[in-house]
């Protein structure tokens, strides 16, 4: 399916917090259709926090996030799969939420068609991860936010993931991926978040100046 409108994600001077603590500040980048941007940096630097802020799950402390409405699909560490439901039921549910009717192309893309009627409990971690990626396909949204997508994927699945991404880009989609390992994606540009990490400047607290 072709993404009709051209969707660009522009982030300017973004600052985000975790547990009241400002972890990243002044982050700016643009992800045009057909592009992948991989966010790199050591664990705990705030990759997940940044993705959650862009996905709208938490308010930014400063800066702007500009993206057309309903254009962002977010895939977190946890895949949102119900173990007691079958693969088909899980995917049909998410497809219905996003208004997509047919889940077979998505299943085919991640080669889980054979397991369609198998309960999700019996899936391996890699298969669960692939089902999570298939969920992105059924959202029909061009900009994908993915948090460590290749974790627990074996080499075959990773190749599958790369092929899926490539076809997504081919149809005018784009992806923002947080990963601490090198994905080996040809068309990807990399952004290291270390310079934006904010542990040097002391936190401005509303209670400054209060004395004993």
């Amino acid at each position, binding site marked *: 399916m072709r993404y009709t409108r051209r969707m660009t994600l522009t982030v300017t001077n973004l600052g985000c917090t975790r547990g009241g*603590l400002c972890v990243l500040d002044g982050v700016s980048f643009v992800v045009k259709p057909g592009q992948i941007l991989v966010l790199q940096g050591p664990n705990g630097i705030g990759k997940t926090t940044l993705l959650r802020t862009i996905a709208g799950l938490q308010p930014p*402390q400063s800066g702007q996030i500009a993206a057309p409405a309903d254009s962002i699909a977010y895939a977190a560490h946890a895949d949102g799969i119900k173990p007691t439901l079958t693969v088909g039921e899980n995917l049909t549910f998410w497809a219905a939420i996003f208004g997509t009717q047919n889940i077979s192309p998505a299943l085919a893309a991640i080669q889980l068609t054979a397991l369609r009627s198998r309960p999700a409990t019996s899936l391996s971690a890699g298969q669960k991860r692939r089902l999570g990626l298939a969920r992105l396909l059924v959202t029909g949204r061009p900009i994908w936010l993915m948090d460590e997508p290749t974790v627990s994927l074996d080499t075959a699945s990773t190749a599958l993931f790369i092929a899926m991404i490539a076809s997504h880009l081919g149809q005018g989609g784009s992806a923002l991926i947080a990963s601490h390992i090198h994905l080996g994606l040809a068309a990807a540009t990399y952004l290291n978040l270390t310079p934006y990490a904010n542990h040097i400047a*002391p936190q401005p607290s509303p209670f400054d100046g*209060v004395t004993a």
Partner: protein
Amino acid sequence: MSIWEYANPKKFMQTSGIVLPWVSALAAICLIIGLTWGFFFTPDAVNFGATVKIIYLHVPSAMMAINAWVMMLIASLIWLIRRHHVSALAAKAAAPVGLTMTLIALLTGAIWGEPMWGTWWAWDPRLTSFLILTLFYLGYLALWQAVDNPDTAADLTSVLCIVGSVFALLSRYAVNFWNQGLHQGASLSMDAKDHVSNIYYIPLLISIAGFILLFLSLVLLRTRTEIRSRRLAALLLRERIA
């Protein structure tokens, strides 16, 4: 909705530091005058005997129990809309004081009712609604304790306070519906002051003023403590990451 708004806890600390001694001194004076006058210098009421003296505790504490919750409601709204940290902490500070006032109202109401109703607890609608108010206070305080991030805690408790207020009002009238009520009738009605003949009225006013000032001074004191502990947490946080 930026993370913290200019609400200047520092300025609050300065002004409250000046005001607190005066308010607490005034509170002490009013309480002492109101209660001693009420206790020693008022005659027995015709059908109540000496128990009429308990109104100097029951009426003010009952009023403060409700006003404390109203104050917490307003402070919660200010926090949700204007993100003023001081008002969120003031709401947190007022809760234990409101709870104590409710317990006092319950205690004095139950003891006072004993000779009239023949039992220590008579499930009278008004006393029962104070019992329900106690549950709301306990729930509110428990929620503050259960959440670690102070800003999340402030948001959640504010929402609970708003919803709780609606249901407290509903319970207040549901309780009337549930029991026709043994509560004292018009002769010396609890809330309608105009029924109280004036020899009892003046000390009642003073003790009400005393309770209001006591509430204010305790809330100011406790809010200052909350602000200092938040400041302490911020400093420790900086120490940990520096």
